[in-house]
């Protein structure tokens, strides 16, 4: 667990960026992942709650999700596509969902995150404080640079979703989940539990995956699940 030695709550994005320019500082939304990430080094935190980044905006065929929007608000917002609402709820239990944020979830890049998979299949694009828009899948693949600050994510509003997952219990973080979306005749499927959350196009690609195994699922089993669950989502969206 990090030793937290300083706290800042900047009032403007430029103040936040100035603070984050120092490599010892970490941005937090609700701070729920701060204590989980295994680091031991002293850090200062930059709390983004005063930046006004918690809006959910209707942008026509897209919905913009502010970085400090909580998962609970996401789950409750009728403006947000059903698949994202449903998986925002599944992502965290009640007592954490009210604190955890969209930006924090993207920043943590948890390979098991079903919410990230939902955002990926909704074509999420992440807006950084410097104005750049980066595809979420690219962020998950390559990570963010030190000093990058997520201000929002934009997702496509339309489409029908489907989820297939396997876990130890019904509300367990899935060992592997397939999350799909069908919009305008195009079907997109993303997987969790196979390494970084990623889009996959079919069996051939899944066969090439080499997911890290653990006590919940070996590499071979995860690959098997990926195939089975992918097929289920495809079938549901066909």
């Amino acid at each position: 667990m990090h030793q937290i030695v300083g706290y800042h709550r900047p009032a403007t994005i430029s103040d936040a960026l100035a603070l984050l320019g120092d490599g010892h500082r970490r941005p937090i939304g609700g701070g729920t992942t701060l204590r989980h990430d295994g680091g031991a080094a002293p850090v200062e935190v930059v709390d983004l709650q005063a930046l006004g980044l918690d809006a959910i905006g209707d942008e026509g065929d897209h919905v913009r999700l502010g970085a400090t929007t909580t998962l609970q608000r996401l789950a409750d917002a009728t403006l947000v596509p059903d698949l994202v609402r449903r998986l925002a709820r599944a992502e965290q239990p009640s007592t954490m969902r009210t604190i955890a944020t969209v930006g924090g979830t993207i920043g943590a890049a948890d390979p098991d995150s079903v919410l990230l998979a939902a955002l990926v299949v909704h074509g999420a694009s992440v807006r950084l404080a410097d104005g750049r828009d980066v595809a979420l899948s690219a962020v998950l693949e390559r990570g963010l640079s030190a000093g990058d600050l997520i201000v929002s994510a934009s997702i496509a509003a339309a489409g029908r979703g489907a989820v297939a997952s396997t876990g130890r219990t019904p509300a367990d973080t899935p060992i592997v989940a397939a999350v799909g979306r069908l919009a305008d005749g195009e079907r997109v499927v993303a997987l969790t539990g196979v390494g970084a959350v990623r889009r996959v196009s079919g069996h051939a690609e899944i066969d090439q995956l080499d997911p890290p195994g653990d006590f919940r699922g070996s590499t071979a089993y995860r690959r098997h699940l990926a195939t089975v669950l992918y097929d289920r989502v495809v079938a549901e969206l066909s």
Partner: protein
Amino acid sequence: MSETITITLNGEPTSLAVAPHESLATVLRRAGMFSVKYGSATGETGAAAVLIDGALASSDVVLAMWADGHDVTTVEALNTEPALHPIQAAFVATGAIQSGYSAGAMILGTLALLRRDPDPAEDAIRDMLSGILDRESGYVKPVEAVRRAAALMRGDGVDAFGPLVLPPMTDGTHAVEVDPADPPPDASPAVPRLVPSVDVPDTAVVGKPEVKVDALKLAKGNPAFTDDIELRGMLYAKVLHSPHAHARILEIDDRAAVALPGVHAVIHHKNTPRVKYASGGQSWPNPHPYDQVSFDDKVRHVGDRVAAVAADSIELAEEAIRLIDVTYDVLPAVFDELEATKPGAPVIHDEEDTTEIFDRERNIVHHFEAERGDVAAALAEADHVFERTFRVHQVQQVPIEPHISIAWLDADERLVVRTATQVPFHTRRMLAPLIGMDVKQIRVIKPRIGGGFGAKQEMLIEDIVAHLAIKTRLPVRLELTREEEFWASRTRHPQTITFTTGVNDDGSLHAQRMRLVGNTGPYGTHGYTVQAVSGLRGLSSYNCPNKRFECDVAYTNIPVPGAYRGYGAPQALFALEAHMEDIAHELGRDPIDFKRQNWVKLGDELNIAPHIGERASDSELVLDEYPRVMSTGIEECVAQGQRSIGWHRRLDPDWRAPADRPTIRRGLGFAFCMHGTAIPFLDMGGCSIKLNDDGSFNMLVGATDLGTGADTVLGQIAAEVLGVRLEDIIVYSSDTDMTPFDTGAYASSTTYISGTAAKLAAEVARKRIKERAAEMLGVDEPCTIELRDRRCWAPDGRSVSMEELALHTLHWEDQEQIMGTASFVSPDCPPPFAAQFVEIEVDVDTGQVEVVKMTMAVDCGVAINPVTASGQVEGGMVQALGYAHCEEFAFDADGRMLNDQLGPYKIYRADEMPATEVFLVQTMEDSGPFGAKAVAEIPKDGVAPAIRNAIVNATGVAIDDLPFTPERVWQALRRADV
């Protein structure tokens, strides 16, 4: 470095000094909000959940500074009146509060939910509760409590909460064919289904759904737990735990830690007396070997103690721990019980001062055998012989309140230890030699406890705080973190069990042998007795003329197993009930019919019991009579359970393989459960009762209520005897200076043993009350006086109130203190029985098992309180479900635990629970208080084998190791080509 934040706390603007690293939970507790509980530092238990801007949020994961400017509500906000808030009242009325450790969080969640939705659907209630882990209730009664609270808040009327009384389906003795068209009773799952027995006498308080005697303080979040006190100058302790599974400590350099300002003491093997002991909380003399010392020069598991410090703050203590420089010689380690007993395995106890190890070189700490008849000959002559080996794994009790102890020297310089323990008296006695004090110099106080389940049947950390308090002469507090709780407290013993059974052509058992290798980790603690109970339970359920138990208990380098609710029975009954199921299938028999043919019935001998355990008898000659089954309601349990689960469906192919869900197979499973009630000739409880001026009574018991409702049940027993209301009994437990001795809360003993002590003590007081009432009323024969409705009645209808009698005897004439004291030890161990049923679905393409429904019908004699008894069954079944389905310790190759957080270590939460139903089938157990037997542990016994047998029903595949996680099931299905 600290800064000031301002929050609106329970409606009042409040400024608080905080440091950047501090959580909101820490700061709220410092501000006196004791309802906010520590369950972990990372939010996942929900015990510290509060309302932030009206939304339920885990305050342990929120930085206090993040909360600056926010509105924060704790349950203390509801405590503006002496009376309970309607939400609190609903939780109390429905029995939703057991230990109450997380009650504040649940009540606040309800408040927030009902503000948004005054009539929430069950899904919304379960979603609200999804972040508050409950190890006690199975969430059944909390869901009911929220519904009831909603009705109360809406102003709707509510009925009194109590059992649904059902007519029996059987004559109590014979099996019946359950009519598939006969629907199960329709009522909320929280309502216990009570099947009365005609031979149970009418009672006024016993058998009634009385509200728990500690409900008020728990519902209000009043300071009642170990950590809820403030002592001037208190120091904070931390323990340096071993990073290695097996290593010798070559050097400890503590100079930097000692030199750190604010550090008051650093203790380790070089400056702490080496006194051998065994940490299991058991009666004197604790089973040998004494293979532990407070600090050793060798570590034997990851998490073993190396050193401890006491400092002005937790942060300083943590810093001091980091500054202790330890040089280890890392040794080879062994984790599996079979590997550990092979020649050439690393020897875990090579020190000379641990004696009485059975075979040191092979890491076999205990070896024991017990036999009735001649099993070898009987197996040779049996018509059919079956053998199967099972492996059960390591799990943990996971009380939401971790271990916590606070020690200080009082004004007489006696050592006081306020601690979360199930065994205050054992702790006092076991602690004395370690710290060089006499027992009389030690006082152990057990306040309210946030669950124990056996983890706290151990002197686990009390010696550390005692050493540090004596050394520093200041109060010292030590609380384990959630991670430490996993690998530095206690767990369930893994075992490898092989059953060999000889069966006659007529289906009767002829010989049964159980071979067991138990894994006790690096220390014996409960290693002997848990494995003994496995043998006892594994060989007691079924009649068989030839029985044999062979047991090795192995040392290994896993985190230490100890006592866990069920105490060896869940392991044994998993293997036994699976094995018996398989035999039935092999013989072409219906599993229940085959088991019924063989299970013990009324009057049958329990013929292995006297030969296994702490007081085992080696010789049959010393026994002129074996214990017998004196009450059993199993046939009624089976009938009620079959109807509840829809047992007829198990042979319906269309149901088992639903056409519209091609990868799903459904199955039903059954397990026959028999447990024990206390340890005969060993478990003892004491009780003392005195009459007060107003006709109320103080009742002091050594029994240890862990949230189980024990205080309430004992109070009900006393109230029944004394003819008063439960609210007239002020129950206090437990404090070694004040309350009578009790062995403690374990072995399903409290209701039966301590309950009988309470009954006897009340009877002593009643005798004197009758004598004094007879004098006051001018009645010649005191035995004709009746006590009821808080009055003493003469046969002619005249009466004197209990208050009048109290004032008369305390103040007016021949003044005396009427009091009764008694203790009880039982020669009997009457078994409770149960039928466990489950319904499951298996996804044959992924191996995922979903448990759809669990029904347990229990014969626990007369349930003294049907609401708390059913709560015990509901919570126990959910723990048992975790054991069977999803909980496991995972390690890397070096013995480091990989999943020491809740989540990765998966316990069930409210929004994923199977349906549950509980039936209480009454029998009259004449040896128990008002007919009671035990109920606490039997719910742990049947779920794993029932699920295993349901998977067989669904897929034809038998899986012999736990838990039934997806990949394990998938691999088994693949091997069987399903």
